[in-house]
């Protein structure tokens, strides 16, 4: 006579619970990764704009005027040091979104001279403040640069 199995054993129930738990954890990870990816795309865009801002201002001022002020700052753009981003620039009145305050920026200007042509290399780095949202995807710093040539 064969003995009929009634109900589930403790091991079966535990295995089912474990599989279910793993599945739930996987789905939650997937959702949070997706959210982080979306937020990181937005933060990268804000950082991109923060980096482009001094490039546009220095292009406007021109090579000569930037070269003349290399020893000091231009408006409130300081050189060779990490600078926190404010929502409103005290010197120019440029307004930035609140999300921009999660970043800091470093501007480096290198004078270039070749034959009779004078130029400057402007390099801007933007990174999240310590403990900030960050870019995600392993990106720790965003760099942008431009060369501004002196007009004849």
């Amino acid at each position, binding site marked *: 006579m064969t003995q009929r199995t009634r109900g589930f054993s403790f091991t079966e129930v535990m295995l089912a619970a474990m599989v279910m738990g793993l599945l*739930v954890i996987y789905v939650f990870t997937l959702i949070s990764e997706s959210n982080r990816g979306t937020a990181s795309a937005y933060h990268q865009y804000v950082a991109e704009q923060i980096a482009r801002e001094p490039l*546009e201002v220095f292009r*406007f001022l021109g090579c000569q005027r930037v070269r003349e002020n290399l020893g000091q700052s231009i408006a409130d753009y300081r050189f060779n040091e990490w600078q926190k981003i404010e929502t409103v620039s005290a010197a120019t009145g440029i307004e930035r979104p609140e999300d921009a305050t999660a970043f800091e920026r470093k501007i480096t200007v290198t004078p270039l001279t070749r034959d009779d042509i004078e130029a400057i290399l402007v390099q801007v780095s933007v990174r999240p403040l310590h403990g900030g949202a960050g870019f995600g995807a392993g990106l720790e710093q965003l760099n942008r640069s431009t060369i501004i040539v002196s007009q004849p």
Partner: protein
Amino acid sequence: MKKQGISIIEIMIALAVTTIIAVPLLYLYQSGMKSSTSGVVSIDMLSEGRRICTQMHDDLKNSCIPYHGGFAMRFCDLLEADFSRAEGLSGAEYRLYRHTTAPELLKKDIDGRKMLLRPVMHVRYRLEKLQHSDLLKLVRIESSDGAPERIKVLSERVSFLNIQPVKIKEGGEQGYLWNVKLQLAYIPESIQAGFALSSSDRGRGILINDFYDVVYSDFFKSVSQNPLAPRNWHTGLTFQRH
């Protein structure tokens, strides 16, 4: 004796187990759907905002003052902000003239002088109220001589737009640039919200993307720094004598 059917106790236990499993699954499904929707909307808003900012950057960068004789010009003549018919931001309009990207020059007769000028078009950015929404519609209207108006809806989720001049003072000289601030938002139907949302509103389930840009007019920079420079300085072609 062989047992027939299932008892009420068994059904109750099965129901209880199913409920215990189904409730978190349903919650998981709902939060997944919500998260997926907000992710799609957020990415869509980001690309929409980038597109608008790129378009505005291009318009402001190429902005100019049409030539009507004389050389006098002011920065404030480049962009006209009209809030006279606006309620809040709804009805507000930004107007400017800009050079086209077309490589040809137009022959014009101004004050008896034959001139070759770069084609100019008129651009308007208008904010309009939307029905059943606290957000605004942003429309770009482009018109040029002899061509029909081109109207394009850029966004239907604008909660704030401002283009204002900012002054840069350096070495005793001063110059002007524009500071563009744009905010796009997604407000779920269950939430009531006004304009110019702050980041604290994100906690209420509102999606907010802020954009900003700084841009100068190529034309105004060149001509204001060289007052006698020809209007189409970039082409090398200026006057055509009789």
